[in-house]
């Protein structure tokens, strides 16, 4: 049961990571990479490492997404480099 759940969450990490790379809308890509961090923290929790999961959830998915979005606001309209 735990293995199945872990596999599902890891598949979610892969999918959201791919979306973060492939999406053309930069805000959606940032939210997607934050989702990858959140799912990674779920993985840590399932593997019985709650301390790491807490740090990952707060820093990896929360603060990083915020800083990316503010950096985007400073940098401009979000056009992709070719």
């Amino acid at each position, binding site marked *: 049961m735990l293995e199945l759940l872990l596999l599902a969450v890891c598949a979610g990490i892969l999918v959201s990571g791919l979306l973060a790379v492939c999406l053309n809308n930069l805000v959606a890509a940032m939210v997607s990479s934050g989702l990858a961090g959140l799912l990674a923290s779920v993985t840590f929790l399932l593997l019985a490492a*709650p*301390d790491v999961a*807490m*740090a990952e959830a*707060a*820093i990896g998915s*929360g*603060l990083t997404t*915020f*800083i990316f979005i*503010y*950096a985007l606001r*400073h940098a401009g309209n979000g056009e992709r480099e*070719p």
Partner: protein
Amino acid sequence: MIYRASVLFAVALLGLIFLRLAGGYAERSALRPLAEHYVSQAPLELGVSNIVTGILIAYRGFDTLGEVAVLFMVAASVGLLLRKEEAGRKYTEEGRRKPAGEIVTTGTQVLLPVILTFGAYVIVNGHLSAGGGFQGGAIVASGVMLLLLADPGTRVNAAALSVIESLAGVSYVAIGILGLVLAGGFLDPRFLPPGEAGAFISAGAIPVLSALLGIKVGAELSVIIDRFGR
């Protein structure tokens, strides 16, 4: 075309590295000798219930100090790099900055006290349950982040936070030196009595160090967020 090819090449190289890593992986049935030592000795030596915090603050205290120093350098350089454009932007930006919608504002009013209380709980209970200074500080900073999202006009008092953060850092090192004088070495928390395992006041100086770490990390991350939010 060359761009695409070089990206694909880099991804293939990364995949090769991870393939080698994953290929040599086998699940262990027993702990490594060092981990075994920590798991069996940490509750006895330090009186700490959460072994991870014990390792982070006592056995690997110097590493933690280095981590916090790196975070301090990041906060200082972010402040330095983002300060330049401040004077020019002040007037143009103020006009088009408007608060977030009703849902985010109300949600922030409900959630912010809960988030800050939870952060403080995680910081002070680091030696008993999962968490500790680093995690709790990050949670407090994410509360500050929510505040800035709800009302972008809010300003964090960066000068006061810098003073608080420096005081926490100085006290951290001072307690470390106290450990050097009164107990086994630098950042040795055993100069205070270990107390009863599982009690709130226990584990020597670990709760004090954890609280100082939480204050320092929370203040540093808040300053970084505030700099980006401008």
